[in-house]
């Protein structure tokens, strides 16, 4: 078969057809929410009214509007965006992302209506029109030629603009999280997720995303502080309700542990498959020293001391397991840590008094761990702060925020220090690093034991939060989940791992109907991520380069001096 060559005329014609198709799609997408989508108001929210869009339908309208803006902006703003500014935004790429996002969103909603009401017949004409509109938009935008990458990322903007953007982004995030968590309907939750993903994709493609990340790099302090402010403000949006706070604290415990693992896997490149055992070690130490009636040890030190002991015990275990294995291949480390995780669980089960000395109460674990009491502040009691009741979980939430802040400070400082650079060198080429005088074994051991210490600290808090500590909370699958959070989000980044942890813990809570298939999806996800995006959702540039060694363009972005020097030779 002979293909016709792509001439400029052909491209021009396709561009025009595509633009028109996409425009029709966008207008229909904006119009369709005013039509009824479903026959019954039992599905999702109430989508049965003519000229009365439901909140979910509004999201579809918003995506349509975003698409319309992307399509019309190059023409309407031609005068403003002239000259050097012409390449600030990549509108065609933005339109492609918006159309795809709209398609996913509408498909989720239509399938959701069909599932919740029992069959596609329950979808009314409005839903079908929206689906056709999204298909038209996708087909149309596919005909548009790809833009050159947007240059907005390189534009310097005044500080007030950046800081107010940060404030707006944080506020939107807070409202969005509060709204999403209040959503009980799993389909709406998924649709909301699709909407957010679509908008984020548009912003990234358009050039606003790169602008945000490059500008905020100059105001990192403001960004981090405001992110914490938002996280701190979250319990106040819950109005004393404990249901969401319980989920939120679980997410934070998971995130804190994943961040610790991120130091070991992401920075130092040591695959630790038994990380959960260090969390467990911290939890058991804290439970044993908590003064629980089921603890075999009578000593009950203050929590500050307990936390330190938990961390030290965990890192000692890390030293014991790390010192022999870190000398040999990285693969061995993975399997030995896996074996260690099993040994830990079995030993905790066996130390029940009949198979070994009584320390952990066997497979029943240690129940009745009392609530924390820090400097007279009882974590079990609700408190009233600024007129809002702060319940038990919210108390732990604040404490966990502190723990996460601690881990992030450790992470960021290590990453930028001599130690962090040593880790990167080891991760990329151990022999070369050793030849350059990096203390390979020492640094590896430090990463391993340090990661274990952080896990131990997180475990100590978890013991009090969970009230009971049992060996079956610390199985291999939990380690695999932690690893998945790190891999999914992006190894070696803080934001990515936080995102991965939130997604992996929040999804099962909100999507109860996939509970049965959770592990299946999880396994497939790991394989697919490694195959198609090994650097994770939020990739650090350097990491991305490690997985795509042949990409010259990327290499140039990471370190322009290297490729230029090579080009000069």
């Amino acid at each position, binding site marked *: 078969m002979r293909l016709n060559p792509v001439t400029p005329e052909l491209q021009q014609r396709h561009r025009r057809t595509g633009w028109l198709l996409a425009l029709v799609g966008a207008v229909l997408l904006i119009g369709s929410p005013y039509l009824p989508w479903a026959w019954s108001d039992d599905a999702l929210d109430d989508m049965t009214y003519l000229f009365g869009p439901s909140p979910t339908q509004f999201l579809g309208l918003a995506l349509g509007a975003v698409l319309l803006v992307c399509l019309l902006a190059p023409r309407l703003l031609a005068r403003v965006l002239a000259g050097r500014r012409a390449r600030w935004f990549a509108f065609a790429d933005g339109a492609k992302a918006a159309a795809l996002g709209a398609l996913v969103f509408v498909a989720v909603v239509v399938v959701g209506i069909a599932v919740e009401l029992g069959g596609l017949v329950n979808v009314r004409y409005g839903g079908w029109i929206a689906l056709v509109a999204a298909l038209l938009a996708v087909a149309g935008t596919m005909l548009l030629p790809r833009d050159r990458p947007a240059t907005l990322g390189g534009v310097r903007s005044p500080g007030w603009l950046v800081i107010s953007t940060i404030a707006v982004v944080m506020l939107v995030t807070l409202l969005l999280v509060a709204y999403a968590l209040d959503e009980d309907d799993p389909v709406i939750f998924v649709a909301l997720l699709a909407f957010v993903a679509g908008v984020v994709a548009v912003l990234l493609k358009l050039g606003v995303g790169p602008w945000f990340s490059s500008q905020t790099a100059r105001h990192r302090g403001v960004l981090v502080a405001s992110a914490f402010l938002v996280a701190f403000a979250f319990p106040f949006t819950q109005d004393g309700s404990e249901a969401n706070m319980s989920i939120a604290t679980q997410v934070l415990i998971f995130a804190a542990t994943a961040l610790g693992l991120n130091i070991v896997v992401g920075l130092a490149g040591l695959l630790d498959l038994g990380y959960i055992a260090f969390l467990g070690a911290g939890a058991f130490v804290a439970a044993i020293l908590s003064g629980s009636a089921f603890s075999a040890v009578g000593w009950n030190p203050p929590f500050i001391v307990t936390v330190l002991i938990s961390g030290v015990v965990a890192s000692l275990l890390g030293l014991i397991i790390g010192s022999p294995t870190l000398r040999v291949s990285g693969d061995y480390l993975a399997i*030995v840590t896996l074996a260690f995780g099993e*040994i830990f669980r079995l030993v905790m089960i066996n130390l029940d008094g009949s*198979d070994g000395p009584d320390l952990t109460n066997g497979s029943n674990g240690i129940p009745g761990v009392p609530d924390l009491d820090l400097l007279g502040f009882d974590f079990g009691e609700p408190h009233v702060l600024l007129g809002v009741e702060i319940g038990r979980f919210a108390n732990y939430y604040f404490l966990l925020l502190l723990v996460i802040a601690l881990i992030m400070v450790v992470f960021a400082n290590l990453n930028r220090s001599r130690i962090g650079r040593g880790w990167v060198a080891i991760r990329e080429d151990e022999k070369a690093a050793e030849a350059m005088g990096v203390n390979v074994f020492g640094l590896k051991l430090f990463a391993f034991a340090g990661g274990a210490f952080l896990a131990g600290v997180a475990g100590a808090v978890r013991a009090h939060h969970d009230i009971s500590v049992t060996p079956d909370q610390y199985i291999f699958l939990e380690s695999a989940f932690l690893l998945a959070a790190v891999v999914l989000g992006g190894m070696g980044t803080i934001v990515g791992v936080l995102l991965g942890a939130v997604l992996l813990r929040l999804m099962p809570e909100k999507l109860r109907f996939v509970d049965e298939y959770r592990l299946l999806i999880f396994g497939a996800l*790991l394989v697919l991520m490694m*195959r198609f995006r090994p650097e994770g959702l939020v990739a650090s540039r350097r990491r991305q380069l490690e997985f795509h060694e042949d990409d010259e363009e990327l290499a140039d972005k990471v370190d322009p001096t290297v490729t230029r020097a090579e080009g000069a030779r």
Partner: protein
Amino acid sequence: MDVTLFLQQLVNGLTLGSLFALIAVGYTVVYGIIQLINFAHGEIFMVGAFGALSTWIVIGRAQITAWWMLPLMILGAMGVAVLTALVMERLAYRPLRNAPRLAPLITAIGISVFLQEVVRLFYGLIPGFPDAKAPVPFPAVQGVSGGALDLGGVVLQRAAIFTLVALVVSWTFLYFFVNRTRIGRAMQATSQDPDTARLMGIDVDRIIMVAFALGAALAALAGIAHGLQYTNIDFRMGFLAGLKAFTAAVLGGIGNINGAVVGGLLLGLVEVMATAYIPGTFGGSAWKDVWAFALLILVLVFRPQGLLGAKVVDRA
């Protein structure tokens, strides 16, 4: 010391060890050629056991237990296991061949969880097949199930004889295959230097597939042996068995086929003897897995290249 008891433990240890050895060969053959720890190999063993059960259900509608079912079950098990291993290699591992070393290991965990879940969720959905969410009874087959042999106080289960014979036959077969056939010699060449082997006209991709297939076939045998010995199989059985077999492979020297067999037998003996002879509270079956893994760590400390491995392990 009671000699009969000791001999009995020896037999038990060798039986358990043969099972480990059959699986360990799969780790070692693949590692020897592409330095990949195929962590999902334990799941191939599990899939093999389910393949045998499926063959029995499909052919033996009338619950046949005649001796000729055994070869058919072996064929069925090997077919399913080899197919799974080849698909896994093609779709998941091959695209990652030049990726950083973390990537295939993470993929392997994904495959492992995925295969377990596929069996757990979907095996029972096939008409006529039992639900695999709980342990499934494994059929008894004439000749290798039933009455044990009594050799002067030492009891020898028929399934144990099957396991031992399976190991001896496979080992002999492997010896001739690796040393006497063209493909076997190509495998040796590839393991020594894949690039040069390719220059010599060896299809390295094909050799890698052969390695996966060999490992899978032996793991399938082990799956049947496991089913016959314990009369139950379940979707989780690959995890611990795989971990132990890997320990055995490291013990003997990973990459070395004889090492895997020796390591497997030794690990089986250590586990059984530790259960029988360690006195006090740390003895007994509750601690046997702990001792097995402790052995792995000890080997890595004092002899990382394994008992029969000559090559010093220096891959990062």
